[in-house]
């Protein structure tokens, strides 16, 4: 699964796109958030952490499939 990264999450991970092996068995948005926080402890310190699936905000129980475009959305600060 490919995960697109922006802003501070891109800097924390050090990449624009993260490829997560299917062996990690991440099946939901919530599981992805947990995995990110464990693997990159600095993610845990952020004000909030959202995930977008196919460019829509997704709930933790949403299922992820390989074809989805998945993005990590750190706290937004436009305007």
């Amino acid at each position: 699964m490919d995960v697109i990264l922006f802003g501070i999450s891109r800097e924390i991970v050090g990449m624009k796109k993260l490829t997560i092996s299917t062996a990690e068995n991440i099946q939901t948005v919530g599981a992805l958030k947990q995995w990110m926080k464990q693997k990159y402890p600095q993610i845990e310190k952020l004000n909030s952490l959202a995930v977008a699936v196919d460019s829509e905000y997704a709930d933790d129980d949403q299922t992820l499939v390989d074809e989805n475009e998945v993005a990590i959305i750190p706290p937004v600060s436009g305007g």
Partner: protein
Amino acid sequence: MLVKIVEDIDVSEAYQYLESPDTGAVNLFIGTVRNHTKGKEVVKLVFEAYKKMALKEMNKLAEEAKQRWPIEKLLILHITGEKKPGEAVVAIGVTSAHRDASFEACRFLIDELKKTVPIWKKEFYIDNSVWVNAHP
């Protein structure tokens, strides 16, 4: 309705888009780079967007505003890239028959944009830089 992510905001072009002889109120809000934050001098801001999703979210807000207020014309522009103090980074414009709708819709659009649209800004000071809102 004009919803775009751009490199630069041309304020007179934005106003021209909103002008309409049939209406009595044009409200155009321009957000600019402030030269200081919490007592620190700001040198520049750098904006980054998840463009596809940001446009989707901006369009959703525009549609919601059109449902709630009698709007003749509506404009949302946001920049990406680097901006110096004084430069425009966001423009929100609403044209309506009367002023109440244009004030209220403008306020709604900028407040919601700040909450939901996936755009991020990094503030650069003389000695360091931070992603705004990232940490408590």
